[in-house]
């Protein structure tokens, strides 16, 4: 078997192990589903009067259409943090060392974890769109719109997964990786994930306008509420890809360094 084929099989096996581990631990997947869905429901019920009644709010059928993409990004962030913590647990309990001591491809150690993050990101995006659709939301962009939303969610999941691996290798502590969650949560609130950028004012508007999550969510949202163009879709995909390249690149360099130090 060629090196590439072997690495691919090992990547698939390690990704599958990560997914199974996540599924077996309710504390790993429950918050990623529960909190975004509850907040989406609360925001939809609280801000249902906003569309069409406040200046700067884009034309939408209902607030749920507007809210679903913010919920997807939030779910991906929470799931990514848990995945990073799980990788740190592998380091803490010695599984990572056993993996390194085995003839497992070094690339597969990283791509396996990232593959699992991407798969969970895709599943989460589809699940959230499905649940929102059950309560009346519609994706204006149709199947192509859903594909764009899923691609951005998958790339963003890779970006968060890469950051999780980076933090796990740097700290070696699952608690430390979980401890970064409030920062991500703040990053999400200081964006247009939950409310339109045009309704914000002052320094808050400036911070949200400089936050890349704003542009990710808006590119996804345009597919749901209408108004998407090839340009908006490509910009969203481009930003997500850029973030993924940075964090995955950083995690690959850190992994290589840690293996060199360990050998």
């Amino acid at each position, binding site marked *: 078997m060629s090196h590439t084929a072997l690495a691919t099989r090992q990547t698939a096996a390690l990704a599958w192990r990560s997914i199974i581990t996540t599924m077996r631990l309710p504390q790993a997947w429950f918050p990623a589903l529960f909190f975004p869905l*509850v*907040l989406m*429901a*609360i*925001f*939809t*019920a*609280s*801000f*249902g*009067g*906003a569309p069409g*009644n*406040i*200046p*700067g*709010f884009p034309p939408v059928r209902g607030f749920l259409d507007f809210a679903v993409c913010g919920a997807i990004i939030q779910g991906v962030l929470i799931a990514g943090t848990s995945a990073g913590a799980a990788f740190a647990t592998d380091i803490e309990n010695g599984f990572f060392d056993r993996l390194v001591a085995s003839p497992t491809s070094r690339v597969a150690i990283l791509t396996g974890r990232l593959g699992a993050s991407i798969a969970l990101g895709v599943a989460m995006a589809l699940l959230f769109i499905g649940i929102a659709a059950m309560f009346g939301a519609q994706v204006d962009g149709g199947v192509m719109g859903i594909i764009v939303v899923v691609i951005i969610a998958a790339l963003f999941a890779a970006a968060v997964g890469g950051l999780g691996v980076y933090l796990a290798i740097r700290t070696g502590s699952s608690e430390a990786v979980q401890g970064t969650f*409030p920062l991500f949560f*703040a990053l999400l*609130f*200081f964006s247009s994930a*939950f*409310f*339109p950028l*045009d*309704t*914000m*004012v002052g320094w*808050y508007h400036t911070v*949200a306008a400089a936050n890349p999550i704003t542009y990710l969510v808006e590119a996804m949202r345009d597919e749901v509420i209408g108004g998407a163009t090839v340009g908006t879709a490509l910009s969203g995909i481009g930003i997500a890809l850029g973030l993924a390249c940075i964090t995955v690149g950083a995690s690959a360099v850190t992994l290589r360094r840690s293996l060199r130090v360990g050998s």
Partner: protein
Amino acid sequence: MMKGLAVSFGLAGRNLLLVRRVPSVFIPSLVMPLFILIATAGAFHGIGALPQFAGASYLAFTIPMAATMGAGFAGINSGMTLARDLEGGFFDRLQASPAPRMALIAGPMFAALVRSVFTTTVVLIAGMIGGVWLPGLWATLIIYAFALLFGAAASCWAIGVALRTRTIQATPIMQLVVFLSVFMSVAYVPVDALHGWLGHVATYNPVTYILTASRAAELTGSVIWSETWPGVVAGGALLLALAAWALVPLKHLARR
């Protein structure tokens, strides 16, 4: 009676001492209400343009919610400290002492009230930095009173959970219920701007009446009795129910 109070204050003092010794427990309870104030008032500023707000500042509208949430976190802290004492065996030593049982939960609750005063003050100062001046002496005292009422109720809830589970790992349950009780009320908009299921849930949620009363004081700058008494009744009933929730396992522990 005096002995019980002395033990309660002693335990409250110890609880507050931990604020300095274990800052990782206290800092989140200080940062969270500030974050909630800034993030809510900043992200949802535009919703203040709805006619139901009658032109009120959204920052001023959010201050009572952030103060209430801060007090809720202070209450959760008391449960966390108690859970740590239960895990570490300190609570068992207290039980073996002649200290009145009631004091064992009154102490952490007093500490939660002191912390609630602190977090509410921080929220009000942050509001002033944002341009919302204090609403006047009596109205400000009303905001403090309702924050303390909710802080005491949250403390009883968290203490009840700690006594039943005897583990710090139960913290997410303590936090989740307090979070949801505030968010499933009029946290973001007035009751007549709520849509669908939340309108019904908020009507039966006592936190709605606590927030409405506190908000009336903040926004009008005066004490409006018709807005205040439902908050007193709902908050009082909530406190009584949760005090019973905290006391029942304490009695069982005494028999062990």
